[in-house]
């Protein structure tokens, strides 16, 4: 693997991490104010559709972006109405928004363009173009230049505006949440809304503000996937990114800079998955690694109670079983034989990592204390 390949994987990482980052920060604002948002996926999808559709019709990507933000903020307002004003179940409301977006985008796209639930391909002007930094070499000549030039031209230059915007959102979010009065109050609304109310500040107002910010960020992310990453809308194109961003948010323990790290990690996993179809490892390392995990689990549950022994012990037996299966499979050709790591394993890794974080095996993720609870003002 040469240097250029590594740079290209990192380049892919940035491109794939950008929408995750925006959606993750959207979730950050919402959840820090005490409103759980399962509906990120739906907002992303709706924004992707409307931005592509409006950009195609108007010919201007900027009007498309505004339309995407508009529909996303609209869905956010619906979520706010259900979960803040009507004090309904926030998770149910989020689920409903996801379905609403999944259904409406296809129904409207079919009625509007009649192409089976997609929009026509966007021409230049109706999509975001890559920004080429001065002096950057085109990809054809990339192999002939030095490593620093490769780094500059491939990794730093050549992204669309929204990628740089996504990266800038991280310090901005950090500043707003930790260095402004609004941010302090917003975080307080998620931890102890009664205290915020006692101080004479409207919890409802703060939570609506947070939900609207989440809508704007999801709108930008949706416009990014339909007008930058790809050049049209296709059915279900958000492809679970909203849920992955939710996973990244937990992975990041509800903090902006950690969110950058988590999204880059998950983006990296996707970039690796895109770039290498076959990841080969020697059989001994795979089987040995699984066996070590099984042993570690067994050691961990040794002094725990029956249920722990049963569940985690069962998991350990499962891992040991897979490890044994690998050994049996390569017995004839020797343990040094290369084995292909299943593609689905790399794809599932973000979810598995998130479960491990949630379980508290890799650091403890503590959600905002009043998250998911509607605030009822005392009378």
């Amino acid at each position, binding site marked *: 693997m040469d240097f250029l390949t590594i740079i290209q994987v990192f380049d892919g990482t940035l491109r794939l991490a950008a929408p995750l980052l925006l959606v993750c920060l959207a979730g950050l604002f919402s959840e820090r104010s005490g409103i*759980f948002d*399962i509906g990120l996926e739906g907002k992303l999808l709706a924004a992707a559709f409307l931005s592509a559709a409006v950009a195609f019709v108007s010919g201007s990507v900027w009007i498309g972006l505004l339309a995407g933000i508009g529909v996303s903020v609209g869905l956010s307002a*619906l979520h706010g*109405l*259900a*979960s803040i004003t*009507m*004090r*309904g*179940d*926030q*998770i*149910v*409301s989020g*689920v*409903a*928004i*996801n*379905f*609403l977006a*999944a*259904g*409406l985008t*296809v*129904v*409207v796209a*079919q*009625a509007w363009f*009649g192409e089976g*639930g997609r929009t026509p391909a966007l021409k230049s002007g109706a999509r975001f173009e890559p920004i080429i930094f001065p002096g950057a070499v085109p990809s054809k000549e990339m192999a002939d230049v030095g490593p620093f030039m490769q780094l500059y031209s491939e990794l730093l230059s050549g992204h669309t505006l929204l990628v740089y915007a996504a990266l800038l959102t991280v310090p901005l979010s950090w500043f707003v949440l930790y260095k402004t009065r609004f941010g302090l109050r917003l975080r307080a609304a998620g931890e102890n809304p009664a205290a915020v109310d006692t101080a004479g500040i409207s919890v409802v107002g703060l939570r609506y503000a947070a939900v609207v910010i989440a809508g704007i960020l999801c709108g930008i992310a949706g416009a990014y996937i339909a007008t930058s990453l790809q050049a049209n809308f296709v059915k279900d194109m958000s492809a*679970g990114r909203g*849920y992955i961003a*939710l*996973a990244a948010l*937990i992975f990041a323990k509800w903090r902006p800079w950690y969110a950058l790290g988590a999204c880059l990690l998950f983006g990296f996993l996707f970039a690796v998955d895109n770039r290498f179809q076959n990841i080969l490892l020697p059989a001994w390392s795979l089987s040995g690694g699984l066996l070590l995990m099984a042993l570690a689990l067994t050691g961990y549950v040794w002094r725990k109670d029956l*249920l*722990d022994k049963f*569940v985690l012990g069962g998991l350990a037996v499962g891992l040991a079983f897979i490890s044994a299966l690998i050994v049996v499979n390569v017995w004839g050709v020797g343990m040094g034989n290369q084995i292909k790591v*299943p593609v*689905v*394993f790399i*794809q*599932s890794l973000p*979810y*598995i990592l*998130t*479960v491990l974080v*949630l*379980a*508290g095996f890799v650091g403890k993720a503590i*959600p905002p204390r009043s998250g998911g609870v509607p605030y009822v003002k005392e009378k």
Partner: protein
Amino acid sequence: MDVMPKWADVVLVPLFSLILAALLSALLILAIGESPTEAFMLMIEGTLFRSAGWGYMLYYATNFIFTGLAVSVAFHASLFNIGGEGQAMMGGLGVGLVCLFIPWPHWSLAIIGASMGAAIFGMIWAGLPAYLQAKRGSHIVITTIMFNFIAAGVLNFFLVGPLKPAGSMAPATANFPTATHLPTFEDMAQLFGIEKMFRSAPANVSFFIALLACVGVWYLIWRSPLGYEIRAFGKSGPAARYAGVGSVKIIMITMMISGALCGMMAINTTQGESERLILNFTEGAGFIGIAVALMGRSHPLGVLLAALLFGFLYQGGAELALWTKIPRELIVVIQALVILFTGALTMMVRAPLEQLFLALRRP
């Protein structure tokens, strides 16, 4: 808060929500340039005026009864099982393994084995998030969502790898042996000498297992000590704990029952319909279970009626997609609206009804 009599709360609120959802959907159909009344008549004709339509409706309803019951059982313990999709996928894996690798002599034995395989696999897949919630405090909604994706990965791994027959391109297992074929409604009608009923419709005997599951869940929740503990825990965890009901036990058992019910959906789709394990056989039924449970107010009878309604909508939606320009996804919109009105905006739906009852009571 007893402004409304109980019957109004149970009947009128879901009904009112449904009418609101229907009105909004009618507006949507108008907006895309079709006639709502024609669309509605088409759905009725395609579903209720033909026996095959009934066959499809009951087939879909069977799935939704299982997933709806699963979500309801979890609701009674104040747990939100959003992982029905993943549990159903694992249930499918269980059904596939049982049907492929055990030589069953007769379908009646095969369906018992397949049900157990499906239930055990679904149970394991719900048990892990339950364990994480009970012992480590991880939020069950997030873990079950993650487990949906992991289940999709596991199913994909088996269908493109070990379980795919050699030389086949499609991500699916080999066909199950003919001995595992479940009698469809068509077979049963022929048994009684009625020809040309339910022709090639996929509804099969698993529908009756779903009905049995309804009775079972009713008995469990309202007539058994365990059900009492589950409901007590759902009303107030600390109070139940004070009365000696352990949270770990209730969370584990409730989620495992829920997972088993979701998994059993697979006997209908996998053993009953496709007769081999395929990708995406769940078709979102795990999520529809949420709408069904909310609409049916978490009561088995309500779940049964709501599942029939959604079965009607799914079959009607297929008819619409066939004869008009309205895509099937319209049903997803209706489903979203039902979830929204019955689950998240209940206060908005109840307020005018409560006003009405107050006004009636005054004189």
